[in-house]
């Protein structure tokens, strides 16, 4: 219920979880899944680090194609989407459904901007002669960042689903946690990009 008089003393709704640990099942499950994802992305990042340089004469290497200013900008976009996501969670905890929707839209748009940037980047690299099958570097690079991009896309789909649920009035305060769970996934995707940005793009 949106209360236009949302004042300073708004109670935050925290559902009581009478589980052994006090953590709700869904939240614990999401964190377990994220712990598991660390090993999945770890494997792909490791593959990239092992294959970072192509054999001589097999297409461009990382230094020749990377556009650091552009990637910095898209990294910043994804980072800011984490802020809007956490503000969306905070909004529904207070029962502020209008702001929830606004921040969900903002997060989804920032995520889409990131994915669009990735599509642009891939196109540019391809035009510079870096196809997926060109070299071990290209396979590893596209494999890793593409896999991350798919995760972002799935996140956007979940955000839009949340938005539609909210618009249809099916996301009351006591279900605030489902937004938080989607948020956890979204932040994790951001975490992975923090690693990728430093390890893949900046450290030679």
């Amino acid at each position, binding site marked *: 219920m949106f209360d236009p008089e949302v004042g300073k003393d708004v109670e935050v709704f925290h559902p009581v979880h009478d589980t052994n640990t006090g953590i709700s099942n869904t939240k614990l499950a999401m964190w377990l899944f994220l*712990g*598991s994802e660390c090993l999945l992305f770890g494997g792909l990042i490791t593959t990239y680090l092992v294959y970072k340089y192509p054999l001589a004469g097999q297409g461009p290497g990382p230094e020749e194609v990377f556009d650091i200013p552009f990637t910095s900008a898209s990294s910043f976009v994804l980072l800011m989407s984490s802020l809007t996501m956490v503000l969306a969670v905070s909004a529904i905890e207070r029962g502020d459904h209008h702001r929830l929707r606004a921040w969900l839209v903002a997060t989804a748009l920032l995520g889409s901007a990131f994915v669009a940037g990735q599509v642009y980047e891939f196109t540019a690299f391809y035009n510079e002669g870096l196809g997926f099958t060109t070299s071990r570097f290209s396979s590893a690079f596209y*494999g890793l960042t593409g896999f991350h991009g798919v995760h972002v896309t799935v996140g956007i789909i979940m955000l839009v689903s949340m938005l539609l649920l909210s618009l249809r009035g099916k996301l009351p305060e006591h279900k605030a946690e489902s937004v938080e769970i989607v948020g956890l996934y979204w932040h994790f995707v951001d975490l992975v990009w923090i690693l990728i940005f430093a390890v893949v793009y900046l450290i030679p």
Partner: protein
Amino acid sequence: MTVTDAPLELTSGDESPRRTLGVFARPTAATGWRSWFTTVDHKKIGIMYGATALFFFIIGGVEALLIRAQLWAPRGTLLSADQYNQVFTMHGTTMIFLVVMPIGAAFANYLMPLQIGARDVAFPRINAFSFWAFLAGGIFLNSSWLLGGGADGGWFMYAPNSTVTFSPSNGIDFWNIGLLITGIASLTGAVNLIVTVLNMRAPGMSLMKMPIFTWMTLVTQFLLLFAIPVLTAAQFLLLFDRNFDAAFFDISKGGQPLLWEHLFWIFGHPEVYLMILPAFGLVSDILPVFSRKPIFGYTFVVFSGVAIGFMGWGVWAHHMFVSGIGPVSVLVFSMATMFIAVPTGVKILNWTATMVGGKIKLSAPMLFCIGLITMFTIGGLSGVTHSVAPADTQQTDTYYIVAHFHYVLFGGAFFGFMAGFYFYWPKVFGYILNERLGKANFWLMFVGFNLTFGPMHVLGLQGMSRRIYTYDAGYGFEFWNRIATIGSFLLASSIALFIFNIFYSRAKAKSLPKPGPDPWDARTLEWSIPSPVPAYNYDPIPTVERLDDFWYRKYGETEDGRLVRIASTEEVTQSAEGEHNVHLPSPSYWPLVAAVGLPIVGWGLIYTWWLCLIGGLLTAGALYAWALEPPDDPEAGHHHDPHEGSAPEGELATDEAESGDSEAVREVETVG
């Protein structure tokens, strides 16, 4: 899952259709064959895991018999070299991913919620999905036999042998995508079961009061949680290589075959432990019952299991001593491998000490337990010889290795599962398996097993290579190969005897008294409820005060330490009679539909892209329908609710439950 005042009403399949999404009627049947397709009951899912695993066990067993028949004599002609490659690859893959792992999952699903005093797992629908995805993956993997032949690269699928250049048929694609699908099943199952153990224990059941099987399930599922994604990452690389011409394992582009080996064994070694730990758990719970003593050193057994779980991550490169990983790595991984024998030895010691001084009753389950302890010790000792790198260099790729891992996987894990089958059969199906046939079953299996795999030690040390489809006369291989082949058919007949025993005992059971809730005079909580277990498990939920709580409700000690019976079985067990006001999670179609989409995507990846689209839409649509469907049918309690005027709406279920008693609130957490 909400506790309401409504009586248990799930049996009628002919009520007016209930609509979710305005289109599909929600399934309601709780009995009959239809109910198995939509069930979310952890017990039914556990039974389905077990039945499916036994089915695949027969397939994998036939493959094993083909191998042994081919090796009966020098220059065997039953199988061609290519067919032999396919058969041994599929035998290994089937036995590991479709037999041993799912039997572990079957026991975990059925027993773990009972042992912690829960009504179901945390996410009943995800549980159903895990099973169906496992089955879909298994069917997909085996569909390769009908579509051009199975995978032929060994279950470890080393690169670059696994690339299209060296294996142009589609077999490895089926292997790869099939195991990706079962990987999804394992991962969702792991998350589900970990949450269940951590969050859904009965009042008073602290972690250190849990039965050891539940502890081992927890460790196993953590191993799955962290090991499966490593394999998934490696399999994505292989998928892109084979299906999209990537360069991950293309030597001409600088691909490194050793990267696959590392990733595979980082997964593969924890995998070894997650296959054996459920059997260890079963044995740790069964031995005390037939020794009539508590387990010796409960904390040691628990923490040695946890230690195995951790150390299992630091030994993977001992599978790669001959691949040129360098002296430093060989040294480090040799040492780590020697150390991991310690916690395993601790367990062997604890089991032996449990039996010492006990009143041992050699029933069939106990015989299989002792079989595990002895056979696993042999397998463990031959394992320690692998940790010595110079010796391992001689043993690598010989039958000595085959002998070792069959002693730990069959002699260890499978003997433990057989003990579990004989022990828990009355709890699950309500009749005891025939004891005399059971003992014959044990001895036949024991002798057959040792005749099959014992000679392989000798063959290996004589230098016979594994994965070779035939051998020449005159190397001294003939005699032991014959013994092994004879043994393998004895082993197969022991499995046939087990299956015969199932049907024979069921027919005989009609004229015998019911086994009752506690036929073995057992120790853990699951024996305090009726056999077979009612749909709601416990009513009321028990309160636990100490380890082996159920035992101490039956027995007390006099001042001089003698055991005395303080309560009869009837006094301390629950009865299925009377009213049980428990509202259970409602069945659902969507887990099945979501899982059906996965292999369709797989066939699409191999043959034609539009199948991917169909499969993807099916899975995605099912997931959406699933997400929008409330975990409990809001109308299910409505028609039969004598106390309340209005049915709880889906969203109100939480509020209603919160105003209820503490049990009710706990049950709300079942949302999956």
